[in-house]
């Protein structure tokens, strides 16, 4: 779900704008409908950063609660989804950096478990490469992972990411570049075969 989709759907969606207006006016049921629309995305961002379902659940709920509280300051003409995802990413990074997260460690591998899926890449990507990538993602510092998630999964601009996470554009750029380089190195044996070069590299 990228920025282009976002512009075509949420921003132009009068129903959503109406719901947002009602929610900003204090209508909790309108807000609940908004939550229903974005719950999977916001949870997805949280899970990819914190890597544990229980924590991602907390983060996703808290992200929506913060969004609700801040709704009166939110520009209702802007799409809600990316904003909520940035709030979630911010909370998720804070969690990952916290001492509690270090104590918890990583789960037995619910998150991003390489699984048989119906997606068209399955034929190209062998399970081993996916496993390696999943572990490489886990080993990234949380700050780098958050930037990577907002960019790669949410297709947010550097500016949006910088604002959302309270970073400079330069920091976003360098964290993303470093994260990608680590992942590339981890996957190098698979990439070298050329088998994984699905999708073009041209922007």
């Amino acid at each position, binding site marked *: 779900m990228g920025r282009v989709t976002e512009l075509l759907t949420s921003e132009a969606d009068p*129903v959503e704008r109406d*719901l947002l207006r009602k929610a900003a006016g*204090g*209508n*909790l*049921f*309108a*807000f*609940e*409908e908004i*939550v*229903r629309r974005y*719950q*999977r995305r916001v*949870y*997805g961002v949280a*899970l*990819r950063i914190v890597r544990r*379902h229980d924590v*991602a*659940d907390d983060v*996703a*709920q808290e992200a*929506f*609660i913060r969004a*609700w*509280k801040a709704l009166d300051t939110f520009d209702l003409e802007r799409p809600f989804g990316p904003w909520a995802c940035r709030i979630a990413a911010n909370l998720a990074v804070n969690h990952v950096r916290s001492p509690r997260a270090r104590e918890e460690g990583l789960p037995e591998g*619910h998150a*991003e*478990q*390489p*699984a048989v*899926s119906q*997606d068209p*890449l399955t034929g190209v*990507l062998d399970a081993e490469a*996916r496993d390696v*990538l999943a572990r490489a*993602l886990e080993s990234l510092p949380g700050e780098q992972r958050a930037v*990577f998630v907002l*960019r*790669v*999964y949410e297709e947010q601009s*550097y500016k949006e990411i910088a604002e959302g996470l309270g970073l400079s554009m330069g920091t976003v*750029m360098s964290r*993303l*570049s470093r994260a*990608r380089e680590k*992942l*590339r190195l981890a*996957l*190098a044996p698979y*990439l070298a075969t050329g088998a*994984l*070069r*699905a*999708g*073009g*590299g041209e*922007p």
Partner: protein
Amino acid sequence: MSAHVVDRLSEYLDDELVPAERASIEAHLRDCPDCTTRLEELAAVDDLARALPAEAPDGYFTDFSSRVRARVEAKPAQRAPFRLPAWTLAAAAAIALGVTVPALLRRQSLEPSAVPHAAPVPTQLEPQLQSRAPAAADAPPAREGENRAASTAPAPAAQDRRQRAEKSLAPPPPQSLAPRAPAVHQEEYAEPHGLAGGVAESLEGASSPAETGRDGERDALKADTDEQMRALGYVSMEKKAKTEAPGFAAAAGAAAPAPKRALESARKDQPTAALARTRFGELLDRAAPTAAEARALREAWRVHASLASGGEADEARVRVLEVGAQAYRLGRDGADLALLEKDTAAYLARPDALQAARARAALQSVRGDRP
């Protein structure tokens, strides 16, 4: 391979470079197979990452939004979205005035001298009326208003009538239905058995004899509704509570009493509208694995929609549709589909329908399934 270019490949991939930088990278890429390969590898990493699933446990999203809402409701102080609106105070004041002013006028018209002797209204009532009138005019903040109303004892005559009514009806009826809208809102943030009940009672106590007929109607309506609720809602909910512990109990909250006890205590202590509200959260938590249960749940939502107001009623109406669709999916009974079509049309025709898209989606979800 140029270090300068390697460092910017990630930005190039994201199309975040200014045109001049971009042109310079592209010029380099044309002559450097290493950098080109590297760029392709970075793109492949992104693609591979996007193919990794991030899945929640089954059913996780079913009640996610209602849990968020419950949490927001649990912390009203920070934003207080449902803070008692001014009109409810005005309405409460209007009820008090509507009752007391005619009573005063009646007295005056009966006794042109306006000398308050041998008044039909007990004399203790008068100071209360005077003390209540400024409350209506000033429209005080919610808490103050509630306290004032709650501390005002019902007039003895009215109290007698209520006591008689309580004796004559078993079980004692919850207070009233229709004019209780302000109390429902207060209920949202008042303690469940606290001040709002006091307001309800004192208003009830102040009602004039002219309203007795309406009280009767309300009681009849309420009795019907209770009957429906028992028939439709609580039977299967009790069963569910027994069979589905501990999941259900946990979802309902450890502090929440068992549904039957909740019903009893609600009947004893709370107005019917509050009872409906108590059930809202419980209904949200309920699953309906069979067509019969889905039908029962649908009708429970229907009852709820008729008792609730505002957004909650809207939500209940949409749930009627969604659970109705579920009933049809489970049972494939044409009657369920026909009812769903009728309900959806009725919902969409409402000027206050808030979730038309969701309503249409409910119907759409089964029209596609039609055998």
